[in-house]
């Protein structure tokens, strides 16, 4: 029933209202005294250099993707771990297969030098 979704609508309204009010208030009340140092982006205390709109090495992406891949794999362990006893040998063998496939991928990436920066 559409009525069931009413709380979501209320939630959306509250969130929107909060964001609008907070931004408006801070814009109205806060003093504005800009200088060049204040306007430059914050980069961990380092002086900023160059534009961020340039090409990055593909290696960043590779590392990031590999991280996500093997990180998300862990998520699948949780439900299995919770029901470990109920699933028994079936669950163990299924998870074993799952890990084996990932392991093959891991070995492949490792041997291909996917974890090395240079």
């Amino acid at each position, binding site marked *: 029933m559409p009525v069931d979704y009413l709380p979501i609508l209320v939630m959306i309204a509250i969130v929107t209202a909060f964001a609008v009010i907070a931004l408006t208030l801070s814009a109205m009340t806060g003093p504005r005294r800009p200088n060049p140092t204040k306007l430059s982006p914050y980069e961990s205390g380092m002086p900023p250099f160059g534009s961020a709109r340039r090409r990055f090495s593909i290696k960043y992406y590779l590392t990031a993707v590999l991280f996500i891949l093997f990180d998300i794999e862990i998520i699948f362990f949780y439900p299995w771990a919770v*029901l470990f006893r*109920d*699933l028994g040998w*079936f669950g163990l063998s299924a998870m074993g297969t799952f890990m084996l*496939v990932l392991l*093959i*991928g891991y*070995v*492949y990436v490792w*041997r*291909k030098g996917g974890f090395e920066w240079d």
Partner: protein
Amino acid sequence: MSLSVPDLNFRVIAPALIVALTALIVLLAELVTPAPRKRWLGVLGLIGLLIAAGATVGLWGAPASAFGGMVVADNFGLFLTLVILLGAALSILLALDFVRAHRVDQGEYYVLVLFAVVGMILMATATDLIVIFLALELLSLPLYILAAFKRADARSLEAGLKYFLLGAFSSAFFLYGIAFIFGGTGTTNLMKIADALAKNPRNDLLLVGAGLLLVGFAFKVALVPFHWWTPDVYDGAPTAVTAFMSVGVKAAAFGAFFRAFLVALPAFAFDWRIVLAALAVLTMTLGNVAALLQSNVKRMLAYSSIAHAGYILIALVAMGASGLSSALFYLLAYTLTNLGAFGAVIALSDGERERLEIRDWGGAARQYPFIAAMFAIFMLSLAGFPPLAGFTGKFLIFSAAVETGWAWLAVIGVLNSLVSAYFYLRPIVQMYMSEPVPGWDRIRVAPLVALALVLALIGVIALGLYPTPAIVMATGGFLR
């Protein structure tokens, strides 16, 4: 708390499992294979495909469902599995020398092909929209990479990227469609959707879902006006990859297309039949007209494959047993013929320099009479000249359409295939009737490519002269 384990009948997915296992083995073997021996990985892949084909034949005739109705092994799915395995095997034969000539001789090529095959097989045998979607992604991702496999070539990269972007775009539509259908019926299982529809036939949510699903499939099989990517991608991708995806994806996606619409949505048949008939007309006509004007063989074949999707769509509009079997037969005939045509392009290429312009084919019949004759026969089969496989396929599809009262669609199909003969004949005329073009006379035709061509040729002629066994096999139908 006790859990019921679903019916894990691994036998049913044996073909896909075997190919997946082969892919993993090849992946590991890649690590220890020295560079000059990479082609043995391809041979390994071929062996895996052969075993999978054996397993498929073993499943023949005893329809079974598994994983709680997620996949089936019915004769429809198994026939397509065989077509896909055949197409993959032939395209690996074509690729063994091709990848070396193009200096991309890496084991990953075969791994990606094999993973794509797993996706294709699953797509052809899936009976649940979620599995169909997973299979669609599983076959698409390797193909995006394969299209861009020739990394040094900007055109190949461009093809891969374009395919990926638009593929992702269409996947979103597809997934959105699944969501609507789930919203409308509470299930993603094709049979259960049909049951839900039978109870409540007028369901607008479902109609939107069906439309979005249609868009997703239309992209994958390249129906006009969802075809824009096809010429660019087919043209830019390495020729061996183009050969593979032009046949494999069509077989798999049409398999799921047919199954989804005929099993889950027959209640809407009145609505989608008209849409699909219109798309079929557009696809055949624009595909053929555009192909008429191409001077590049690969682009010509790309538009030709669009037109052929239109013919197959007629079979879907026709529905019924004859529509189904004619589509299966057509896909088999098309797979053999198209692989042969691309194979001939590969066979007569000089290293990385390919005979892409039609004028490059001048006098090829004098220099390479066997390859030229085979290419000519493949062209004639695509044009639907009797007594070749393409003719039988078209005859079956058109008679299925006539039988189910869609004679006008068959008439447009006949007209289109008459028009198409013209551009298919152009390379033949060029090969047989003009002077040889200088610089194309020192090609060593790779024996394995020649073998693939001969195999395809045997199939094309056999399916033209004596198609009865294949037609009988194609009449297996679905397990509902």
